[in-house]
């Protein structure tokens, strides 16, 4: 095969190695792909073959797992997902922005019509006009309100780029310019672990369990894998590819039992599950409580381990057994809450206690991104602790982001000799950056703008330490301005964060005098901007990349442009350079380095420059980092802590596993929504989103919402080759491709809904249209709709045709003192849509043209079409 790849010539095609992944942070490159180009055209995109230019045995120090009489080896090619293969469709999408545009009814010298954001059309303007308006508005706002009146979002869901970074390339410029208000992303995929588990086991800064060498440990030692709200056939694709899939098949071959606990038969459960235990969304906390009740009752837990490794067990036990509140948390108590029969809870508790069990998570999946997610997180951790967390085969393993934030303890796969490091050459904003005093947690942006002031605890950055969760902050910060302008890049707010409809209303608020956006596609929040700047996709740019997360081999490679930039588009970095130039800050901004120099600087600072020369790197096109010798010896997960908790304490205040979180007890002793001892919280001052509450009489169905299967967050929703897959889109009678919403036949039958019907999913926060996908893959009384569908407002802030379910998720955060978002496990009702009636009410929206196979494009929003 290596021979074949190297030929690559009779056709006249040239092969370029590119990172086609979608996490948007420099450490997180992955999905290395081979792009064959000819005559300025992309012919094909395919998996990258490690052995193209290298001899595996000689150059790569291949790793393998040899356990239980069987062998697992990494694939000799990268295991990229379908949207990497299909990426040329994204480049030539009908929604590609090819030149600067301005909202037709926004006039910086007259009426600004903020209320029309999301409704108005756009007209083409020149780059000079666009840059003039932006810089003059920046200066005007700075003069009138001070620089903190500018909110820079800079942290959303875009392509992976390094030198041409698509998020936050403007942060450095704004610091030079005098300051700004930073939107701080919170850990949007692992909320419960971050806001909850850190108070149980520390594990800074991520909050999930220690991951080192766990793939090997699970293969060798685990007898039972509990995939809890984990879909490794969906969530990891855009970050790292499909090694988790191969491993899951192998674990089955090894005879390791796989149980999936989730409301939906997710894509992993559909092909790997030995048993599916359907649980009502966001009720996992009650299930864990009942399991520990059973263990306390039967004595089937590791009491000696808890004596030496944990604190607060008695307080926890008092709550579980009902000594505290008179309610024993029995399986019979949990059954109606969770929808899991008591006998199944008992059987699960018994099996878990009798087998070396690893709980497997996919970051959060839907299970950890709901109201009060801190409680389910800590209660799961407690279950692991009661069975001896850190013993071989007993850990919390994640199926995604192996190596997150460049942290060795996040490395679940065999350790490479070096981890390529591209942070020094990265021009964008990083999640670990703070911007004191003026910042707003992303979840609070609508509240800040709509209410004019707000306060909260924590979130000074996505990588902040547990103790930051006790620090009180407010908006506007002392001496700082309210927000009057918004700059966004690669935006995805509406379709990915909390209560997207509130965000729309916030952007329509009269306080927001100016909003500009830079993005390759006219989609989602870009539809709210007053000025839109066209950005390249990554295949139109030179850059440097690493493939870090694949779990197979680490790679470093310079990236060469595959095609010329479309229209008048530039990279985000180039655009910021243009702005810097107009503001007289270009030299300070670039530090005097050109883009080719930055790319080479990336190699110099990559930790690999002593392993491969710049010349050889360019000649071969990529470098495979060999596996480190002795990777097998790296202690797995919490093993060191298990062996010697005194020598290897946790970062909790006591150094132990805190069944009673001493930090929370000190700072928030009376918090009923995240109490010191974790609890089942059916409702509270922040949320009323469970069945049995008053609200559930009106909105009786629970929504389960995971990351999408056929895209990464807001990305890829316009790829025609994916949209024709039935679980991606469903064509309605009007020819529009609606986003599927999964309904159990019983749920659909009770409402007279038939397969393929256009339906309205609604609550008091708004309505989203979708198409009914009637299936046994979802339990009764639950609907599944993944996030990321492209927002296509019929009435902005009220009614969406595209299926952006996040427009109607809770506006409140995880809980009162935890400002995570809560985007799964919330109440709605659903009904068959009277399309004709809606069309009569909103004729304009339904007259907007759309591409029959790619969805809404530029022509819907541009004056005169295009």
């Amino acid at each position, binding site marked *: 095969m290596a021979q*074949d790849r190297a030929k690559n010539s*009779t056709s006249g095609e040239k092969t370029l190695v590119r990172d086609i992944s979608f996490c948007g942070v420099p450490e997180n490159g992955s999905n290395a792909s081979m792009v064959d180009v000819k005559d300025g055209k992309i*012919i094909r995109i395919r998996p990258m073959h490690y052995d193209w230019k290298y001899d595996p045995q000689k150059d790569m120090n291949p790793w393998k797992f040899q356990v239980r009489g069987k062998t697992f080896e990494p694939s000799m090619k990268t295991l990229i997902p379908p949207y990497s293969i299909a990426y040329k469709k994204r480049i030539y999408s009908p929604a590609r922005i090819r030149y600067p545009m301005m909202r037709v009814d926004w006039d910086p010298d007259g009426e600004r019509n903020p209320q029309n954001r999301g409704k108005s059309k756009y007209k083409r303007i020149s780059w000079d006009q666009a840059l003039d308006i932006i810089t003059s508005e920046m200066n005007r706002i700075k003069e009138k309100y001070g620089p903190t009146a500018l909110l820079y979002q800079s942290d959303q869901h875009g392509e992976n780029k390094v030198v041409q970074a698509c998020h936050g390339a403007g942060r450095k410029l704004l610091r030079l310019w005098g300051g700004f208000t930073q939107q701080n992303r919170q850990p949007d995929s692992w909320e419960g672990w971050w806001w909850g588990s850190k108070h149980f086991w520390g594990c800074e800064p991520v909050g999930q369990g220690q991951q080192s060498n766990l793939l090997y440990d699970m293969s060798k030692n685990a007898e039972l894998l509990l995939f809890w709200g984990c879909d490794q056939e969906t969530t990891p694709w855009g970050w790292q*590819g*499909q090694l988790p899939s191969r491993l899951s098949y192998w674990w089955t071959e090894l005879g390791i039992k796989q149980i999936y606990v989730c409301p939906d038969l997710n894509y992993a459960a559909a*092909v790997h599950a030995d048993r599916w235990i359907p649980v009502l969304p966001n009720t996992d906390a009650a299930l864990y409580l009942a399991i520990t009740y059973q263990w306390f009752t039967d004595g089937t837990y590791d009491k000696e381990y808890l004596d030496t490794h944990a604190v607060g067990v008695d307080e926890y036990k008092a709550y579980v057994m009902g000594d505290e509140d008179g309610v024993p948390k029995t399986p019979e108590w949990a059954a109606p809450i969770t929808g899991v029969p008591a006998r199944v809870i008992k059987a699960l508790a018994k099996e878990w206690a009798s087998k070396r069990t690893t709980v497997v998570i996919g970051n959060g999946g839907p299970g950890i991104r709901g109201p009060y997610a801190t409680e389910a997180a800590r209660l799961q951790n407690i279950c692991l602790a009661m069975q001896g967390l850190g013993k071989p085969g007993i850990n919390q393993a994640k199926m995604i982001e192996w190596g997150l934030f460049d942290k060795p303890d996040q490395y679940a796969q065999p350790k490479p000799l070096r981890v390529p490091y591209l942070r020094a050459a990265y021009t964008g904003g990083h999640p670990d950056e703070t911007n004191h005093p003026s910042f707003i947690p992303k979840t609070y942006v609508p509240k800040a703008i709509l209410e004019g002031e707000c306060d909260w605890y924590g979130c000074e950055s996505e990588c902040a330490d547990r103790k930051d969760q006790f620090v009180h902050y407010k908006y506007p910060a002392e001496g700082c301005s309210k927000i009057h302008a918004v700059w966004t890049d690669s935006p995805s707010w509406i379709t990915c964060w909390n209560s997207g409809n509130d965000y729309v209303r916030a952007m329509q608020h009269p306080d927001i005098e100016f909003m500009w956006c830079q993005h390759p596609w006219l989609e989602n929040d870009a539809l709210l901007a007053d000025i839109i700047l066209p950005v390249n996709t990554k295949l139109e740019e030179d850059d440097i990349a690493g493939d870090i997360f694949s779990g197979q081999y680490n790679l470093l490679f310079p990236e060469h442009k595959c095609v010329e930039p479309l229209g008048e588009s530039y990279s985000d970095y180039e655009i910021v350079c243009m702005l810097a130039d107009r503001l007289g800050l270009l030299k300070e901004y670039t530090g005097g380095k050109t883009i080719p120099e930055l790319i080479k600087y990336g190699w110099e600072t990559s930790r690999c420059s002593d392993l491969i020369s710049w010349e050889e790197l360019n000649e071969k096109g990529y470098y495979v980092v060999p596996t480190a010798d002795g990777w097998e010896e790296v202690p797995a997960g919490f093993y060191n802590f298990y062996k010697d908790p005194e020598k290897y304490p946790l970062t909790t205040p006591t150094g132990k596993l805190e069944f009673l979180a001493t930090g929370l007890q000190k700072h928030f002793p009376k918090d009923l929504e995240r109490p010191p001892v974790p609890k089942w919280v059916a409702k509270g001052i922040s949320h009323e989103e469970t069945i049995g509450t008053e609200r559930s009489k009106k909105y009786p169905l629970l929504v389960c919402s995971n990351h999408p299967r056929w895209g990464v967050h807001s990305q890829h929703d316009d790829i025609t080759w994916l*949209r024709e897959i039935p679980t991606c889109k469903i064509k309605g009678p009007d020819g529009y491709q609606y986003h599927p919403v999964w309904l159990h036949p019983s749920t659909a039958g009770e409402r007279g809904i038939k397969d393929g019907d256009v339906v309205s999913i609604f609550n008091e926060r708004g309505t989203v249209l979708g198409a009914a996908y009637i299936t046994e893959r979802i339990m009764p009384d639950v609907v599944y709709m993944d996030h990321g569908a492209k927002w296509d407002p019929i009435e902005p802030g009220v009614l969406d045709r595209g299926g952006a379910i996040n427009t109607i998720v809770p506006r409140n955060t995880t809980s009162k003192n935890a400002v995570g978002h809560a985007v799964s496990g919330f109440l709605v009702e659903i009904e068959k849509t009277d399309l004709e009636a809606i069309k009569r009410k909103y004729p304009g929206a339904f007259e907007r043209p759309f591409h029959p196979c790619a969805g809404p494009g530029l022509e819907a929003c541009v004056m005169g079409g295009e």
Partner: protein
Amino acid sequence: MGKVMIIDLSICNGCHNCQVACKDEHVANDWSPIAKPQPDTGQFWTKVINLELGTVPKVQVTYHHSICQHCEDAPCLEACPQKAIYRRTDGVVIIDPGRCRGNQLCLEACPYENVIYFNDDLNIAQKCTFCAHLLDQGWSETRCSDACPTGAFTFGDEDDPKIKEKIAVSELLKPELPTRPRVYYLNLPKKWIAGAVYDKEADECTEGATVTATNAATGEKVTTTTDNYGDFWLKNLSDGAYTILIEKPGYLTQKLGPIDATSKDQNLGDIVVWKA
């Protein structure tokens, strides 16, 4: 040295890489004389079919695959009056886009589903070519097999010993046909009957009960034992109606059926057993 494809449904995760890679190769790329461009949507020279089996909570998904079988005795080839369809020395069956006149007789002649498509714009019939244009450049894989992350697609030479080994245990999609296809399948879906047995009085899952399914027509018996959740899955059943016997010492024997597993897999749901 004939080319063959072996598709193992038991390790297909449904990622659709095969279907998408095929489009990446053939949409907007002209590989004449092997193939003209495929339309952007609606046609699938290799197609993934999503089969959802069972009912909550006994549900599984199998991803089936349709692709040209590249038959040794290809009905399409015989059916074409233009003689536009030919077989290469490596066994690959090609519809010559230059000779095809669009009479569509091959579509009718093909006994397999989702194989030959008609391109209205070009007025030609089109289908999988095993990426013959790439094989001719020295590739040893098709786009679909190269893109497959799990090894569900194996492409190679029929004389290769490793391939022979796989062929020996594989099945044909329609074994009753005399077409002699070059596509083989592993683990084609077989019907199952499942359920969960529990003791209602004790509210406990009943472990260790013997469950026997008897085919009403043939008398063929399949037996399994319930696990710690009281679950049983009687797998690899031939089509037919079955009676189910659930037995456990100390309990009354339960008899169910006949259950028809001809058209679909059956989840019998929660089944109560009573102490004797």
